[in-house]
């Protein structure tokens, strides 16, 4: 078994490149079929998300996968080579574990990726392109992802200011569905944060800006409503979330505005996100019951709290992954001696049978008990003789002399010519392993 993975992700390739490499859902089966038809490829699967396109295979030694992308997408190899990363064996295993655990994601800890990997796996498995080695690898990857998620808090915090704003808004309002967001000041940052809020369910957008044209523009972009600058305070009454980002030198919202708003809104809470410097919302407003005011520093410190915490959690997650990679490698290595053990047993069994057949005629009539005794004795001899070689094979399988021991044993028993053994390797190594 030989794992090989090539791919591009958000770190190695710009969006323009990833766009061209994306494999749509309908074309996925074709891509997988073409992949496993490559010479030397035993198993293969394709993972295509907006942040990555990866091809994972179990190959025979010496297979070159690099040609797959240019060939499949009809692109020149030169254009791609600088973006593609390639992992083999242990590195590939680690990469798969990291991807599934969302450690390789753009937003570390985001939960979607695991589902996407599972989907890609299901498609490939449905086509029969994933059966033995990759199957083992992927099942392990899912278990690792689950472990990372349950043993670290990696999935429970978020990073950017916009994300923190959304998180806070959700802790105040529960769902943002049906909430109204009021943008006071229509800059880029405001637009970005608003987009984030909208993508989390906020429905109505009001925009107020000193230059009314810009307000109209932005309102149109969100399907919202532009508010004339003179009606700045009036419109606030309708908003649950107010996002201020104007360049005003003095605060626009004072405590008395807050009091008026509360009484007109029947004390329903409001959330002020003030990303303007100097501030647009006076801190005294935040002292009122039901008024929550976060300025840039508050958001930043909340976000950096998160980042520090997340970094710590990500480190713990990496440790878990590393541990799991080791465990998997040991398992794979001992898996790799199973065919030899099987052919060894089979080889001896053939000799035993042949010898019994040869001597059977000379024994004349014997009782069933005697026959059973001969069976037991010959079996016993073989088992005792094979005990040491098999134990040695298993115990050294993960160590440095593994290849040497393996090779010696195969040569001593002349197993390399044994075609039957080769076939068995494909059939049921995993099952036999547990029996021994």
């Amino acid at each position: 078994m030989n794992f090989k993975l090539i791919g591009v992700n958000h770190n190695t390739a710009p969006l323009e490149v990833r766009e061209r490499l994306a494999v749509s859902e309908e074309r996925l089966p074709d891509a997988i079929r073409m992949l496993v038809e490559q010479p030397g490829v035993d198993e293969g699967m394709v993972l295509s998300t907006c942040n990555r396109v990866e091809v994972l295979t179990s190959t025979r030694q010496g297979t070159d996968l690099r040609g797959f992308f240019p060939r499949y997408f009809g692109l020149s190899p030169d254009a791609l080579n600088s973006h593609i990363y390639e992992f083999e064996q242990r590195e590939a295993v680690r990469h798969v574990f990291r991807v599934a655990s969302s450690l390789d994601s753009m937003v570390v800890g985001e939960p979607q990726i695991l589902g996407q990997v599972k989907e890609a796996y299901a498609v490939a498995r449905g086509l029969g392109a994933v059966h033995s080695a990759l199957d083992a690898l992927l099942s392990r990857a899912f278990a690792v992802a689950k472990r990372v998620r349950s043993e670290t808090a990696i999935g429970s915090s978020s990073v950017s200011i916009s994300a923190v704003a959304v998180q806070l808004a959700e802790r105040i309002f529960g769902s943002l569905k049906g909430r109204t967001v009021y943008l006071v000041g229509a800059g880029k940052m405001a637009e970005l944060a608003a987009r984030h809020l909208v993508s989390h369910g906020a429905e109505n957008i009001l925009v107020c800006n000193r230059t009314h044209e810009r307000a109209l523009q932005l309102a149109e972009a969100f399907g919202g409503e532009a508010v004339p600058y003179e009606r700045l305070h009036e419109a606030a009454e309708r908003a649950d979330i107010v996002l201020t980002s104007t360049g005003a030198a003095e605060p626009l919202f004072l405590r008395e505005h807050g009091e008026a708003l509360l009484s007109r809104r029947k004390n329903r809470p409001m959330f002020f996100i003030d990303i303007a410097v100097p501030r647009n919302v006076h801190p005294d407003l935040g002292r009122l019951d039901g008024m929550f005011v976060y300025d840039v520093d508050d958001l930043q410190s909340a976000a950096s709290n998160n980042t520090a915490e997340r970094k710590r959690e990500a480190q713990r997650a990496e440790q878990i992954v590393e541990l799991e990679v080791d465990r998997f490698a040991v398992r794979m290595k001992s898996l790799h001696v199973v065919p030899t053990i099987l052919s060894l047993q089979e080889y001896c069994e053939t000799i035993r049978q042949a010898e019994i057949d040869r001597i059977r005629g000379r024994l004349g009539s014997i009782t069933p008990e005697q026959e059973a005794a001969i069976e037991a004795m010959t079996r016993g001899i073989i088992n005792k003789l094979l005990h040491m070689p098999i134990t040695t094979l298993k115990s050294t399988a993960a160590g440095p002399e593994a290849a040497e021991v393996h090779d010696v044993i195969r040569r001593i028993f002349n197993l390399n010519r044994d075609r039957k053994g080769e076939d068995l390797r494909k059939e049921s190594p995993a099952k036999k392993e547990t029996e021994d």
Partner: protein
Amino acid sequence: MPLFWLRVALTLYGVGLLCAVVTLWDSRRRLMGVMLPAAGAGIVFHFVSLTETAMSDIAPLSSLHQIESLLAFLLMTFFFVIYARYKTASPGIAVFPLAFLLTLSAQSSILATDSVAPQVSVSWTYMHVGLILLGYSALFVSFFASILYLIQERNLKAKGVGGFWSRLPALATIDEIGYRCLLVGFPFMTFGLIAGSVVAEARYGARYFSDPKILFSIVMWVLYTVLLYARWSAGWRGRRAAYMAAFAFGTAIVALAANSLSSVHRFIAP
């Protein structure tokens, strides 16, 4: 034997309570998978116990222990209704220990030493006690929700994002739970008091009005009404609503405790 089932329920509540405490202690452990089924099974057995008591010869609702048992049952039911509606188990922090203690006390004995005076109409008494207890449960959950609201509000104002309390439901959800409980509890409380009045009227005539228990109950009801009105008309929430709810709940406790002062309102007829 109703006590047996009650004790089964008690054990299950205990398991639920234990899980809740562990979950509170160590946020990584998710014992919800044990806590909710245990509490749910507890409710079922509790219901069996209540039904058995109702069908036996024991005079219905005639002892404090029976009332405790019923109250615990209603509280747990409330917890599950809220869980089903809002997917939050936070009220469990208060409901589980209380229900456990009430059941613990209830299972010590369910038999009344004596029964209610025979002239009292049994069905009216039933209605009175049942409705009032439903009202109490709602008021308790609402009161606890307003405490959670204060905690969450303070937490949000402290501008922290993570931390122990970050697992509380959203402020708006807590607010809604508190308000809905008040809304639901109010008619129960009102009709419960009316039913009680009917019983008392029949038994004592106008004299019952001067009884401390009755007076406290009326004060509680008035507070309850004011609280509900303030929330409905002015959207009182947060600090003011919490103080008010605490006050109303305190009066309710006093009214409940006033049984021992009262000459006309006793579980056990003198």
